[in-house]
């Protein structure tokens, strides 16, 4: 019996083929028997192997061995549900990866047998790439759908293109000629007052427009909130904290399902169009992960194996960011830096491929008509002065402060919502927030336009085609190709700055209350917008300084030629990166996303400086980024691999049971079905160690509660003669006595390679094992005898306790 686990535990992660080979050899080579001295081993071999019989049909025997011992594909077909997990449970990475390896080995063995098996083998080998290809395709298409739908519906708040209702304002005026540009209006596009028959001028029509704006905002938000409530409550929020938790090995059933996908996509279109202060980038990651989860069911290799499925989900997350920002590399790095937990190189390449496909598809759909996959793509090629780096670092510091402020306020508000009566009125809350946002937003033209358009405006340079108040300088354009001259700011700029400051305050305030309401809502766009406003104002200030004091030491003589040496748009970009960095605490992926947005490698250093400064300041003021803060608020069982465990406790302090309790164990061959059912009823553990006998407490393996339940109920139905008095055997042999009802053999559900530690192991090591190996539980032994169990829940609680937080807040089963 014990020689299996002994052989396997040697290298649970390494290449196992030699060990299995040797295990199989023992059936053919009778001499090997002598090596094993334990008496039940002898029984084992004589009963199941039987020398010649095994030698005759080696292949069949091997196949059976795999399927029986390690629950491969055949096994899960036998008892439905074995090898899967319940809702709100943690997965066992080790077990799932071992399952996959066995399945793979079985396929490789079978490959030589027939053409069909060969095809199966090839299909299995390429199914990972095929799956991410499909995920990329679907993500691109869905993102295109959302982009086009949202831009159309956003403009529906202002008017309609009567001749072709499916066009938004920009598209409606696509080929109309010689219009005065600043109003952006044309004869095909009818504003709502015009539809109702009045003119476009005067206070009356302003009021009608205002009213329509509010009504449409309210309608969209109400639809979004009620669809979410009715069909898929899991579709609300940004989804990134939950995706992080799921990727770290947690099961939330239905979180990545079909309905969540549909409702999140539709709800996202509606909530973005309602003018709320939210973005569609974070939810896009959730949508991509839903697609990844749904498509992985086409490939049993991934669909049935939770650990393998997470490889596909990591790639999907990359595709999500890739389509959200048109930044494939940024997406891969985001998946690596921010969401993924287990990220082998294989997944890196697949993520790369998936992000590439998704970006390509979205780009060919061309949702914004600007040949890019985001609305606020800008192209820059202006140099920056070295001394500007000080300003950029300053922006980074401001970004860190705004980010921390935002996190603190938002978490406070979310906690208030969670604990107070406010949480009982989710739809009303959405409506109230929408009405307030709409009423305050409309009068200010910078908040009236969609946030992406505002970001685009703030990022772009003041060229000849830009007639906004922000570009009202006292300058004269004579040639588009020559450099823009530096000029004094006109009245328009001052007015724009005032409006922008109002917009900043409004956006900051509204985003705090918006992030967390029960509609799909993301955080990237509002944070980018906040940063862009701050950066633009800062940039204009520096620019005016350069105009009035061109000889100052700050500009190292570069501004004395009369060219516009300072680009406020660049400051807006750096500011956007800084605030986003302060909110999410991303660094590498953020910089890459930003530079993919602008297509200029030249600005990597400013962006890096700002992102770094913002992270430092943010980390100094508050420990967690917004996603980690939300994970902590919700109490998801997320064992952060970034934190360090700095306490000196030992495994014995954390282990269950405590000093005077009894450890619930199952013996390998002396408990009846009734005994086990009583044990299952009386205790609530999710798994039980199996020991040789209660007296010796020598460990045999570990069996999960779910598997035990399923197998017993299955056996009672399917196998004749199984009753309450049947013995449950975790051994291969028959019981000593042959009287009474037939025994129930459950060796196939026994995990014979549980990870064990001794009671004197420092918790630092234990926590590391949990993080790096993705354990679900570990068994604690003392002098070789089983002493207790440490589960992930115990570890998380212990960490909370050590950090003086409430350990009971963790959501877990």
């Amino acid at each position, binding site marked *: 019996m014990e020689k299996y686990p002994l052989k396997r535990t040697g290298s649970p992660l390494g290449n196992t083929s030699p060990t299995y080979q040797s295990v199989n050899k023992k059936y053919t080579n009778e001499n090997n028997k002598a090596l094993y001295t334990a008496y039940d081993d002898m029984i084992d071999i004589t009963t199941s192997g039987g020398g010649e019989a095994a030698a005759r049909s080696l292949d069949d025997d091997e196949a059976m061995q795999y399927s029986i011992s390690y629950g491969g594909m055949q096994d899960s077909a036998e008892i439905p549900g074995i090898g899967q997990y319940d809702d709100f449970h943690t997965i066992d990475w080790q077990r799932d990866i071992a399952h996959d390896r066995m399945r793979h080995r079985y396929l490789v063995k079978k490959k030589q047998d027939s053409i069909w098996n060969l095809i199966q083998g090839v299909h299995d080998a390429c199914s990972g790439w095929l799956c991410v290809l499909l995920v990329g395709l679907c993500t691109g298409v869905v993102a295109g759908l959302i982009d086009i739908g949202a831009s159309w519906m956003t403009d529906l708040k202002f008017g309609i293109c009567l001749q072709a209702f499916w066009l938004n304002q920009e598209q409606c005026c696509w*080929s109309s*000629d010689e219009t005065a540009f600043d109003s952006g209006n044309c004869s095909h596009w009818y504003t709502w007052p015009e539809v109702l028959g009045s003119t476009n001028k005067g206070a009356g029509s302003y009021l009608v427009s205002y009213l329509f704006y509010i009504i449409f905002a309210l309608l969209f938000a109400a639809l979004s909130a009620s669809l979410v409530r009715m069909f898929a409550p899991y579709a609300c929020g940004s989804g990134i904290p939950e995706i992080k938790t799921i990727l770290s090995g947690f099961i939330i059933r239905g979180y990545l399902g079909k309905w969540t996908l549909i409702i999140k996509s539709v709800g996202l279109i509606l909530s973005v169009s309602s003018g709320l202060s939210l973005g569609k980038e974070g939810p896009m990651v959730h949508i991509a992960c839903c697609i990844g989860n749904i498509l992985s069911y086409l490939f049993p290799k991934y669909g049935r194996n939770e650990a393998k499925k997470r490889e596909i989900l990591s790639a999907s997350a990359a595709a999500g960011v890739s389509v959200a920002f048109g930044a494939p590399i940024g997406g891969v790095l985001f998946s690596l830096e921010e969401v993924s937990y287990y990220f082998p190189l294989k997944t890196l390449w697949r993520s790369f491929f998936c992000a590439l496909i998704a970006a390509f598809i979205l780009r060919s759909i061309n949702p914004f008509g600007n040949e890019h996959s985001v609305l606020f793509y800008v192209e820059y090629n202006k140099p920056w002065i070295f001394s500007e780096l000080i300003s950029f670092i300053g922006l980074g510091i401001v970004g860190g402060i705004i980010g921390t402020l935002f996190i603190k306020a938002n978490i406070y508000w979310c906690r208030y919502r969670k604990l107070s009566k406010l949480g009982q009125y989710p739809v009303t809350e959405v409506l109230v927030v929408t009405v307030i946002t709409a009423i305050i937003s409309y009068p200010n033209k910078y908040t009236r336009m969609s946030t992406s358009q505002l970001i685009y405006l703030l990022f772009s340079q003041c060229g000849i085609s830009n007639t906004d108040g922000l570009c009202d300088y006292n300058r004269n354009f004579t040639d588009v190709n020559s450099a823009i001259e530096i000029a004094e700011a006109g009245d328009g700029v001052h007015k724009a700055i005032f409006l922008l400051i109002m917009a900043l305050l409004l956006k900051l305030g509204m985003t705090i209350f918006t992030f967390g309401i029960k509609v799909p809502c993301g955080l990237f766009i509002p944070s980018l917008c906040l940063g862009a406003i701050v950066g633009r104002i800062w940039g204009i200030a520096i620019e005016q300084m350069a105009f009035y004091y061109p000889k100052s030491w700050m500009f190292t003589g570069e501004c004395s030629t009369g060219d516009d040496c300072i680009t406020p748009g660049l400051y807006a970009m750096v500011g956007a990166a800084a605030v986003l960095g302060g909110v999410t605490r991303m660094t590498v992926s953020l910089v890459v996303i930003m530079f993919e947005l602008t297509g200029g490698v030249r600005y990597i250093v400013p962006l890096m400086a700002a992102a770094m400064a913002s992270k430092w300041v943010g980390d100094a003021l508050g420990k967690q980024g917004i996603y980690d803060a939300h994970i902590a608020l919700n109490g998801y069982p997320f064992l952060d691999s970034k934190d360090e465990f700095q306490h000196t406790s030992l495994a014995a302090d954390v282990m269950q049971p405590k000093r005077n309790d009894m450890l619930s164990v199952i013996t390998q061959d002396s408990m009846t079905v009734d005994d086990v059912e009583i044990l299952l009823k009386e205790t609530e553990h999710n798994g039980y160690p199996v020991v040789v006998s209660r007296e010796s407490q020598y460990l045999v393996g570990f069996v999960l509660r779910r598997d035990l339940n399923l197998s017993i109920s299955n056996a009672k139905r399917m196998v004749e003669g199984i009753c309450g008095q049947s013995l449950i055997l975790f051994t291969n042999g028959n019981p000593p006595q042959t009287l009474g009802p037939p025994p129930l053999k459950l060796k196939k559900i026994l995990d014979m390679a549980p990870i064990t530690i001794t009671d004197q192991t420092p918790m630092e090591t234990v926590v590391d094992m949990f993080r790096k190996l993705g354990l679900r539980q570990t068994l604690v032994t003392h002098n070789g005898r089983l002493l207790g169990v440490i589960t992930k829940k115990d570890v998380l609680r212990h960490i909370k306790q050590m950090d003086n937080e409430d350990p009971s807040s963790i959501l877990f089963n």
Partner: protein
Amino acid sequence: MRTYALIILVTWMSTTVLCQSLSDDKRCKCICPKVSIVTNNTEIVDGERIRYVANVPPNKCNCMDVVITKIANQLNGKEGEFCPRCQCKYENRNTTIIKVVVIIVIWIISVLVIYMAFLIILDPLLNKRMKGSYQEHTNEDEDSSPGPMSHDMTVRGNVLNRVGHQQDKWKRQVREQRRNIYDRHAMLN
């Protein structure tokens, strides 16, 4: 609901009077100051811009080919001075995709809204009538093991039954999700 009525009306209208110019998929857009900036020297740029759009091949997307052909008579030979102030950009789009996508989005939203209305208004009425059988049905299903019992049922029941069974399962899941989020506030706060 009012929007949908309007949209249906507009669809109807648009099929009859679809203007050719709205379905152009390529354009060259030039943005220029007013012509008076070169003809009348006293005036400086007042922020006003005019845009000129033409459907020309990409290599002809420049001021000379797009703008000057339209306003040559106003410029009095000052093209050389006017043209550098114009910015031209070639753009393309696909109206068919936009049309299809927007119609799909409207369809999905309408279907969902109708289904939601059905679930809110009609379903409680229907369920009240079939309370007895429905209750039994639920209990049977609560026995979560998908063994021979559920197998039997799928074989016995017709397609409608199966759909109803799936729907009940889904409803239970949504109820569970609602309890987690809206009542217990355990998740997604």
